[in-house]
């Protein structure tokens, strides 16, 4: 007889398109749980310099000392002792596509990566479990001096750059999960855009967890020198497992004078994943930082992309979409910290809740004393698909300056019967009508996405709707 867990797995497997999984083939997998020895082992396996080893060990202390956050989503089912913190899938990193192991290629192919790459990707940094196994960078980018490598390579090959910026935007003791990531991080991307260089094609990386109970702790650092521009795109799908997985990433971005960075994420972790991510950018004089953040999957997401506006003229923007369906809690939003005068920010959040799903907007606008002539605008719209679904709004404002202009509007709406009837009377099924209304609701954000991501997001929402309308 099948166990409860197996039945659950079968059920999920039929519902979740990307819920396949490969037999596990690992060169090394750390034992479950986390202590000094495991951290030392990770650092040793990676052949890291001593400063990084020290950095990890210090972070571990912070992690062990800090209590779990009690605000936000319920994390009580998270068991840190049941997680493998490091899994190394292949002996060394594949340089070319040919060198990438076959079973990993198969996974990528199912996700459509090689095709996408052939078309117009500048480079692919695909995170397969804890190690980036394949990475390519288009030659013209290399000629421009753009660096786009996985973080582990960056530690080895660009130690000065990494040492200068790593952990400066999100310090290891920032919060419990940033501390955890700092202790056990593996993979992630390192992007360096030299002064005045505009990277015209989005840089893309795909992420994927594949070992049961394996945390994924990628670490991304992006530096855009004055006048530079880059759009980094991160998309995630994950296979289904019966017990909880943890994903806890840290993303740090430095946008220097007159530069611009856009960071786009579509995450669709399978519905057993805890997705607890710290994303933060510092924007300097006349710089622009934009986070575009789509959260569909996971069991629990806590993610509030932040911009610290450090010098006059800096501008920050967060566009966030969260979709919470049965059993999910999406606690998402954004943070804008105005340190300098004449800075501006905007947060636009759209959330959709379905069934027992719960979407929360949690956002902070902080204006430091002396940061006059700040403009900030927050819009959060929630759409409820049925009677059961739930939405909450937690807008925090800490304004220490008077000469500022702060706007906030929030709306909660339900899908109107009249809208459904109107669309159905034109030949659309109820599910089609519902997904059209939902896609229209988030359109202000999808229109900012690269086309293939917009299409994928719309399709994922359609899949969600087909399951809900009977």
């Amino acid at each position, binding site marked *: 007889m099948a166990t409860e867990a197996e039945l659950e797995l079968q059920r999920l497997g039929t519902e979740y398109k990307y819920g396949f999984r490969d037999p596990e083939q690992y060169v090394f997998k750390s034992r479950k749980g986390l202590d000094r020895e495991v951290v030392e082992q990770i650092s040793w396996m990676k052949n890291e310099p001593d400063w990084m080893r020290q950095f990890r060990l210090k972070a571990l202390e912070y992690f062990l000392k800090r209590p779990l956050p009690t605000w936000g989503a319920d994390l009580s089912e998270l068991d840190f002792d049941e997680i493998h913190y490091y899994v190394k899938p292949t002996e060394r990193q594949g340089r070319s596509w040919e060198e990438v192991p076959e079973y990993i290629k198969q996974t990528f192919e199912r996700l459509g990566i090689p095709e996408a790459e052939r078309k117009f990707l500048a480079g692919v940094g695909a995170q397969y479990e804890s190690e980036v196994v394949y990475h390519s960078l288009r030659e013209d980018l290399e000629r421009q001096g753009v660096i786009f490598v996985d973080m582990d390579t960056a530690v080895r090959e660009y130690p000065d750059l990494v040492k200068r910026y790593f952990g400066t935007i999100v310090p290891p003791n920032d919060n419990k999960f940033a501390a955890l990531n700092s202790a056990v991080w593996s993979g992630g991307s390192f992007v360096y855009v030299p002064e005045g260089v505009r990277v015209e094609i989005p840089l893309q990386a795909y992420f994927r967890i594949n070992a049961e109970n394996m945390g994924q702790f990628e670490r991304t650092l992006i530096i855009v020198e004055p006048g530079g521009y880059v759009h980094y795109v991160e998309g995630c799908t994950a296979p289904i497992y019966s017990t909880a997985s943890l994903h806890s990433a840290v993303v740090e971005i430095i946008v220097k004078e007159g530069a611009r960075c856009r960071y786009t994420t579509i995450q669709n972790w399978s519905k057993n994943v805890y997705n607890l991510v710290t994303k933060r950018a510092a924007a300097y004089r006349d710089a622009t930082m934009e986070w575009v953040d789509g959260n569909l999957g996971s069991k629990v997401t806590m993610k509030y992309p932040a911009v610290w506006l450090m010098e006059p003229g800096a501008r920050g923007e967060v566009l966030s979409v969260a979709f919470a369906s049965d059993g999910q809690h999406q606690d998402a939003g954004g943070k804008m910290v105005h340190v300098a005068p004449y800075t501006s920010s905007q947060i636009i959040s759209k959330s959709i809740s379905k069934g027992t799903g719960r979407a929360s907007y949690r956002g902070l606008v902080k204006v430091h004393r002396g940061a006059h002539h700040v403009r900030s605008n927050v819009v959060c719209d929630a759409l409820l698909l049925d009677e059961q679904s739930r939405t909450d709004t937690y807008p925090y404002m800490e304004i220490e300056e008077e000469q500022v202009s702060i706007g906030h509007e929030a709306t909660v709406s339900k899908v109107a019967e009249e809208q459904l*009837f*109107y669309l159905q*009377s*034109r030949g659309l099924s109820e599910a*089609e*009508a519902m997904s*059209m209304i939902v896609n*229209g609701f988030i359109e202000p954000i999808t229109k900012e996405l690269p086309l293939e991501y917009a299409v994928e997001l719309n399709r994922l929402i359609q899949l969600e709707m087909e399951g809900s309308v009977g």
Partner: protein
Amino acid sequence: MTLEATPLFTIENLHAGIEGKEILRGLDLVIDRGEIHALMGPNGSGKSTLAYVIAGHPNYEVYEGRILYKGENILEMTPDERAKLGLFLAFQYPTAIPGVTMANFLRLAVNSVRKARYGEDKALSPREFRRLMREKLAMLRMDESFATRYLNEGFSGGEKKRAEILQMALLEPEFAILDETDSGLDIDALRTVADGVNALFNPNMAMLIITHYQRVLSYIKPHFVHVMLDGKIVASGGPELAEELEVKGYDWLKAEFAEAAS
């Protein structure tokens, strides 16, 4: 030997309402291909209720009677199933759908109806659809920018009515109901809409034009005119009936009807 053909559309003894309140009280109507029928009546007589019941609005309840389309009772069908059979309702108050462009919405609608009516392989490619849409926009003297606007959002009254006729033009219904399509239109807009409707009409289809005023009927010539009072059709005739109503108003009919009922 010839068999008398089944009429395209038949309503038999229809009793229907909303939240237990009966609005239609035994309504009969037969409409055949090649016919334009006008349904007139004062406010509150149940005209729009009839339109909603035919289209399948979930809030309306049918207590008794049948609606036959090509001989098949459609009352158990969902609104989209009815649309896929070739029914169309031009709404009096079209709903706005923010973020959804006319073009995206209409391509999905047109193709789901085409596939159901003409076969799976009859869906239009994006290119074919764009060409068809441009053609119909031109016919209704609508700007091409309509295609990229959000469905009914921020549309003026006249734009909404034109957009409804545009949808009708693209969906090619066999039976179309126009619910007060003339209301809120100035005389130029009314003429444009009426020209469009006349151009779309053909001997294979039928139309039911619901209106309060006779005005539209001088642009779209009905073959039959019905007057509705209190949930029933109380008078039927040719186009001359509409003219009579224009002169005399509804009161004489109300009085006559009240007399007959007592």
